[in-house]
């Protein structure tokens, strides 16, 4: 009996058309709700993507160190910034001798896109009256570029350090008052000051790096620290940043002598903040949907009362109870659909306006999945809210209506 559905549709259409203003108002109401959800989601998703990009974009997603080197100091030094997890404690860590093997193992994993063996240590730089603590970072620059893109971030001097020369961060250069070609003096614990030359200055866009990093060749760093052909850590970047923790855990169980720490572990606070931001956005969405439900339900309830005479005569003429219910459910679906589509357009318009007004500081991100979730939850709400009025009106007894008519 699909034919009766045809009549149910035309009944729903005529009922909606009859009171155009009412229909328009409720569609507008739903549309505003959807627009708010679209805009809010775009804003929060954009902010979060931005934050995550800033956190993990030019940073290792997983840091591999020797398991025995885990010290209390390592935990203390981590304060929510990725760059700081490869901090002063590095000097206390037992170096990794079999890093060639590890590089091969990690490179074979499709989920990992970059592997960087690094030799790290801390030291002091003196120039005149100024003393600054630095993080000595020794790695192969070509490989490091795959994570940090240092070569393209050099703003002054050479892109690659040559013998006894280093690249330093922009802020450190300002603090020390040096430019490329200037000599500096590096003091490592228990060693005599060593004369080095600043070959280039980079800007990685993260002040913690720009203030503290001293980049040199891996072998030279290893020689300075006296660890031979060993490294202190391996830094990994994975294809999907959100899988980092899972990948780290999987490898941890296979490599008991090493500790793998993902960016999620290191940035637990950030992730908690993002989660609570998301849940506040869900709360708002929930209340918007509640408003949609109440709106549609009240409009259809009024509609049902207004149409009770007509429903009564239709029932006398033999329309089935379910047909009446469906005619009202269809009204809910149609209202939801029209409201969702209008609201989606309105939401896009709002975000465009916002970008125009706020300038480029803010990123707005509209994920297809979020759009689908918003639209389908709105549709579902509108349909569900039509259910009660539909059920009530469909159970109308024609005799009552005819008698009181």
């Amino acid at each position, binding site marked *: *009996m*699909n*034919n*009766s*559905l*045809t*009549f149910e549709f*035309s009944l729903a259409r*005529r*009922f909606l*058309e*009859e009171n155009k203003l009412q229909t328009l108002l409720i569609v507008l109401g739903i549309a505003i709700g959807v627009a708010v959800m679209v805009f809010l989601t775009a804003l929060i998703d954009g902010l979060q993507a931005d934050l995550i990009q800033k956190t993990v974009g030019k940073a290792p997603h997983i840091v591999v160190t020797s398991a025995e080197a885990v010290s209390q100091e390592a935990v203390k030094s981590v304060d929510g910034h990725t760059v700081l997890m490869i901090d002063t404690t590095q000097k206390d860590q037992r170096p990794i001798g079999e890093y060639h093997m590890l590089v091969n193992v990690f490179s074979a994993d499709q989920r990992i896109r970059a592997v960087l063996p690094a030799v790290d240590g801390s030291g002091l730089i003196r120039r005149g009256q100024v003393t600054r603590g630095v993080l000595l970072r020794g790695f192969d620059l070509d490989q490091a570029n795959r994570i940090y893109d240092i070569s393209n971030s050099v703003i002054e001097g050479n892109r690659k350090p040559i013998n006894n020369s280093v690249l330093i961060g922009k802020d450190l250069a300002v603090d020390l008052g040096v430019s490329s070609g200037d000599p500096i003096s590096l003091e490592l614990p228990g060693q005599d000051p060593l004369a080095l030359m600043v070959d280039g200055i980079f800007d990685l866009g993260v002040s913690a790096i720009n203030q503290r990093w001293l980049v040199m060749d891996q072998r030279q760093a290893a020689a300075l620290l006296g660890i031979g052909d060993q490294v202190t850590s391996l830094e990994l970047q994975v294809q999907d940043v959100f899988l980092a923790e899972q990948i780290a855990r999987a490898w941890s169980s296979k490599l008991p002598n090493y500790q793998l720490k993902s960016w999620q572990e290191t940035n637990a606070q950030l992730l908690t903040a993002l989660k609570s931001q998301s849940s506040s956005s869900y709360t708002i969405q929930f209340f918007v949907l509640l408003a949609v439900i109440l709106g549609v339900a009240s409009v259809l309830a009024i509609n049902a009362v207004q149409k009770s*005479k*007509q429903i*009564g*005569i*239709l*029932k*006398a*003429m*033999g*329309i*089935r*109870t*379910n*047909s009446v219910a469906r005619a009202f459910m269809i009204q809910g679906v149609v209202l939801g659909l029209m409201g969702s589509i209008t609201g989606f357009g309105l939401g896009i318009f709002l975000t465009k306006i916002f970008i125009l007004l706020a300038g480029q500081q803010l990123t707005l991100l509209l994920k297809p999945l979020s759009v689908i979730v918003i639209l389908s939850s709105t549709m579902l709400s509108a349909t569900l809210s039509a259910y009660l009025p539909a059920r009530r009106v469909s159970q109308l007894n*024609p*005799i009552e209506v*005819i*008698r009181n*008519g």
Partner: protein
Amino acid sequence: MDNVLLKTINTTKEFGQEIKSQVLFGINLEIQAGEFVSMIGSSGSGKSTLLNILGALDRPTTGKVIIDGTNLGQLSDDQLAYFRNRTIGFIFQSHFLLPQFTVLENVLIPYLIYAGKAPTEIKARALDLLDRVGLSHRKDNRANAISGGEQQRVAIARSLINHPSIILADEPTGNLDSKNTQKVFEMLKSINRDYQTTLIMVTHDHTLAASCDRLLKLKDGLIIEDLDLIKQPIQIQEDRCSVSD
């Protein structure tokens, strides 16, 4: 000509759950196909309740209703709805047209409820019926844009669209002036004559009641008079007491 279309056997009706009030007491009635029956009685006599039961809108408390060989008690609610749609045409005191639809669409609605769309021949039939009630020129008007008398004529056309075997009319002229009353009644008579459609009409108008083939008078839930007006026509008198309330 013994061609029973509608039969009730000991039909009773009670209303109320805790305090029961019986409205019909054992109605035994046979109506022949093609008869034009009028039903009179004061309010509370049970005539509307009986009409609702005969129209499959309500179920009797006990007893049977058989229409066209179908025992209505054996049908589910949905089957009953379909049965009403196919077999019974309704005309009510308030015409109950759907103002969202045009005059022509209103005539088609009983057909559309199950068929969804009306093929050309059904549309032609609807136009014929509108023509018959003198309203084909109004076919594209909204149903609420025509006069009360015209709306009742549309309701008559609507009741006929599915070729019902019975038309039940509940005070069809109750809201009309004498000119329109006469017009509507003539239409019902001609439908009864031309299509052999069985008509059962509840009315307060004794002149109309006396112009039918048969007259039933109800009182206190019982049929107290059953007059064959073809064999024994009665004098139409405004003050006639045996038939009036």
